[in-house]
């Protein structure tokens, strides 16, 4: 306290008793709105019954506030509480899982709000709301959600400020104050973000069973019709940044899953078993020349898929384990989005030495569930007669499709009992699944080992962020055939009409085309798409900018995990484990520094001295050598009195200067500053008396 007085800082007096004033009705109504936002937005996460129940509790309280009615009786709140327990237990089957926890928290907020009567209760409601706001990050940490949560937090703090202040005239600035509080906390948040020791892995929360989302993955089975639906899903799957320029679209085959088991035109992924892993362990590492590799980094959206997309063919994938069929399998699923680096061969058909050129499971790769119809057999016989090498068979099959005007369509006619026959001779229209499926079965009938590969093809280049965005609509299926002791990629879709554009321009171009006119697919609109008007280009650029913002946020903020922090710390010189303590020390020190900074701001700034004051200080300075120092609280008159008593020789000068100064600073008519300055300038007291007055 003494110290504070010394610095002339006065802290507001501490309240002797907690405030007990009744909260303003307006504030309560605003709080009602905040609680409503919390309860209603639970629609996005929680069970519908929980939300409806929460809304009922909220509505009761809202009505009682609106009509200024009394709080509900205790027993009623009790019944509501017990019912909440039961509901959460029944609907989620227990307490484990984030959803159950957050649902309960939402109900808790509503219940506490219902029974609130005193200030303290309402504070508690606000605290629960703040906790709820932060818990939303468990589900969504996009840039947008940050903004929303920030706004919500500012609102909640403003309500707390309004609650604590009984005088409504201060309420207008509550929002500003709460924003200021958050801004002041920002440096600390940044510091903690970078340096607070991060936990390896997933936060320790068990993702609830109900968290498994089916929409964010490629299916493990390929049934005709699947991709047609996903084609309209505009959700991003992942984003890729290449080292160097992005390869041409027709090389961008993102390989995810390999399917070898066929059943009636449907394909299935075989999940790796212990045997597979043993084989993987014995596989020699695949090597390639550095300059033959395309390097890239993928930031993948949250996904439940076990298989990771890599550019065909992947070399030594960083994340996951490469299986014998060259797909990449991950054992541990990240809860949020994740990033990994990839390398692919620059030459798509590069020989792939595997098991010394033998196929371990040749019989599986040749097996089919159906037999070719007479027409198909005749067709194949023709191809066989003309083929000298297995690769000729592939060419002839592709040539057949090209010559017979096969068409790429997302809305093909349905296929009957013998889909291969009908597709080859009658409908001649389909999308990648039809082509890949038919082609693979044909190859197997012809005695060439073949398999279906599912992944993504192409993507949209974001011109703002210079990265490739791959959406679920870019999902694609193609074939691989075993010829000349290596797997070769064959994409039969590419030979169909429009299929070629699908591959070379990307799905987005095709969708834009269809969007214009689903029936009349003239090439003009495709040209329009590829050569957009300036307006269209601006719109696209805007869209790209928005997506880029999200991407950069994901890449730099969300993706800053344990490993990224470790890299950063190592780069900063904190290599050892026990340097964590040094780091914590530094953290505490910086927090202290920040507090000091804010404390410093509390200290009233020195009064800016005017020219008159500065001149007067010069005058005082001249008297220093006579050990005449002006006390801070001494008025100029008092000081002049003391000075003249000690230096009677200069009495007139001192008095004149003081008078002039007082006139300048306190007088009605300030007088002349120049005159005062001149007086001070000529005031040069010496320790010896001046000549004409001297005694000697």
């Amino acid at each position, binding site marked *: *306290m003494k110290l504070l*007085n010394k610095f*002339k800082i*006065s*802290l*507001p*007096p501490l309240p002797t008793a907690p405030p007990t004033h009744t909260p303003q009705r307006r504030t309560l109504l605003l709080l009602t709105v905040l609680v409503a936002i919390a309860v209603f937005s639970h629609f996005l996460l929680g069970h519908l019954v929980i939300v409806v129940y929460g809304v009922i509790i909220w509505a009761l309280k809202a009505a009682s506030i609106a009509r200024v009615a009394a709080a509900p009786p205790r027993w009623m709140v009790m019944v509501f509480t017990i019912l909440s327990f039961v509901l959460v237990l029944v609907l989620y089957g227990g307490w484990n899982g984030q959803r159950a926890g957050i649902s309960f928290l939402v109900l808790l907020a509503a219940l506490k709000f219902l029974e609130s009567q005193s200030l303290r209760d309402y504070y508690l409601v606000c605290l629960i709301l703040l906790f709820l706001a932060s818990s939303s990050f468990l589900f969504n940490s996009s840039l947008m959600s940050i903004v929303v949560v920030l706004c919500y937090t500012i609102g909640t703090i403003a309500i707390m400020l309004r609650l604590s202040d009984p005088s409504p005239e201060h309420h207008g600035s509550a929002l500003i104050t709460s924003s200021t509080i958050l801004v002041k906390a920002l440096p600390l948040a940044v510091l903690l973000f970078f340096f607070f020791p991060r936990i390896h892995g997933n936060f320790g929360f068990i993702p609830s069973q109900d968290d498994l989302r089916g929409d964010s993955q490629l299916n493990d089975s390929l049934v005709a019709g699947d991709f047609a639906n996903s084609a309209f899903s505009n959700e991003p799957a992942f984003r890729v940044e290449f080292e160097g320029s992005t390869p041409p679209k027709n090389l961008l085959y993102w390989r995810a899953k390999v399917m070898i088991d066929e059943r009636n035109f449907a394909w299935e992924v075989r999940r790796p078993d212990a045997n597979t892993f043993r084989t993987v362990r014995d596989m020699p590492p695949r090597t390639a020349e550095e300059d033959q590799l395309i390097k890239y980094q993928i930031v993948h959206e949250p996904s439940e898929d076990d298989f990771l997309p890599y550019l065909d063919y992947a070399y030594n994938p960083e994340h996951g384990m490469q299986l014998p069929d060259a797909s990449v399998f991950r054992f541990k699923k990240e809860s949020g989005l994740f990033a990994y680096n990839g390398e692919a061969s620059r030459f798509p058909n590069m020989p792939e030495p595997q098991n010394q050129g033998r196929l371990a499971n040749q019989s599986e790769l040749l097996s089919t569930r159906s037999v070719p119809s007479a027409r198909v057999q005749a067709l194949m016989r023709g191809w066989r007669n003309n083929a000298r090498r297995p690769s000729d068979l592939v060419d002839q099959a592709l040539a057949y499709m090209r010559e017979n005007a096969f068409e790429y369509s997302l809305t093909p006619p349905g296929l009957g009992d013998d889909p291969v026959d009908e597709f080859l001779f009658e409908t001649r229209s389909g999308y990648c699944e039809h082509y890949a499926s038919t082609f693979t079965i044909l190859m197997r009938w012809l005695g060439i080992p073949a398999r279906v590969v599912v992944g993504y093809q192409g993507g949209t280049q974001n011109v703002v962020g210079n990265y490739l965005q791959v959406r679920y609509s870019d999902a694609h299926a193609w074939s691989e055939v075993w010829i000349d002791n290596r797997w070769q990629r064959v994409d039969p879709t590419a030979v169909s009409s429009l299929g070629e554009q699908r591959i070379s321009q990307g799905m987005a171009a095709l969708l834009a085309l269809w969007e214009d006119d689903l029936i009349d697919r003239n090439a003009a609109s495709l040209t329009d798409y590829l050569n957009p008007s300036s307006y269209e280009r601006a719109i696209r650029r805007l869209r790209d900018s928005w997506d880029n913002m999200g991407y950069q946020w994901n890449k730099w903020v969300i993706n800053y995990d344990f490993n990224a922090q470790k890299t950063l710390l190592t780069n900063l010189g904190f290599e050892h484990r026990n340097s964590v303590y040094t780091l914590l020390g530094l953290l505490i020190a910086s927090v202290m520094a920040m507090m000091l900074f804010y404390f410093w701001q509390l200290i009233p700034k020195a*009064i800016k001295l005017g020219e008159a*004051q500065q001149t*007067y*200080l010069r005058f005082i300075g001249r008297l220093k050598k006579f050990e005449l120092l*002006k006390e*801070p*609280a*001494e*008025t*100029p*008159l*008092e000081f002049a009195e003391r000075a003249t008593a000690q230096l009677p020789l200069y009495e007139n000068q001192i008095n004149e200067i003081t008078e002039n100064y*007082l006139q300048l*600073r*306190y*007088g*009605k008519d300030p007088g002349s500053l120049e005159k005062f300055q001149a007086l001070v300038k000529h005031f040069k007291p010496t320790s010896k008396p001046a000549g004409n007055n001297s005694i000697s």
Partner: protein
Amino acid sequence: MPANQLDTLFEKLDTIILGNSQATRLAVACLLARGHLLIEDIPGVGKTTLAHALADLFGMPFKRIQFTSDLLPTDIIGMTIFDVDSKKFHFKRGPIFTSTLLADEINRATPKTQSALLQAMEEQQVSVEGRQVNLPDPFFVIATQNPLEQSGTFPLPESQLDRFLIRISLGYPGPEFEKALLSRTARKANQGQEPLIDQDQLRALSAEVDSIHASDAIIDYLQNLLHQTRHSGRFVTGLSPRAGLQWLQAAKAWALLQGRDSVLPDDIKELAPFTACHRLHCNDGGDTQEQIAEIIMQTEVI
């Protein structure tokens, strides 16, 4: 010139109240600032003499009320009585209808009576049967109270002490002055002084007080001091804005008495014990004068 008039006034006053020129000047400053004076002292040090002298020298009618516990508000303000001759009610003015009122031992009266006086002081008017009756202008109350004798008194609450612009105490005169006082033959000699300043001149002087310049610098200084009384934790409650206004008003009157046209920090400082202290209560029961002095010592001024 007013300066000359004031000089002769003080000369005269100093011959009446011996050796207490500061108290007399403060009393005059209080009168010029249109405030009311509280004299806190033991009996017999010249309170009445001072009040009388002021009234006489300024040519103002003077009345005195000795406050007792059975004094009623009507004893001060007056009452409505029925006149049998004219068969009409008519208001008989009480002693408060005067320009100088000495309220002797104000703390002896009941709060009800006290507040009747204090309301009149604040508003310069009294209510009679729901009617507002103006009091003369100038209206100057000099109240006294005995700080030692506490039995049977009703100490003035802070809110009412706040109505007094200046509080002084006269104290014992110095030895020479007391000798001079004792050797004086006729006590009556002091009474019935010729007025030196008439009421119009007094009003002009009061107007002059209002026109004394208070610069931004002086306002800053005063506000700083007020802030300190509120937030230093020394006092139960800090000085009110009204106290601040009165402090400044008193300082202006003081500056006028010094022959200046603007307030200096010295004026503020000098008047602190007389304008601030009676409005404050120390947290630890200590001496308000000391605490105020400490605050002034810690407040920078240049």
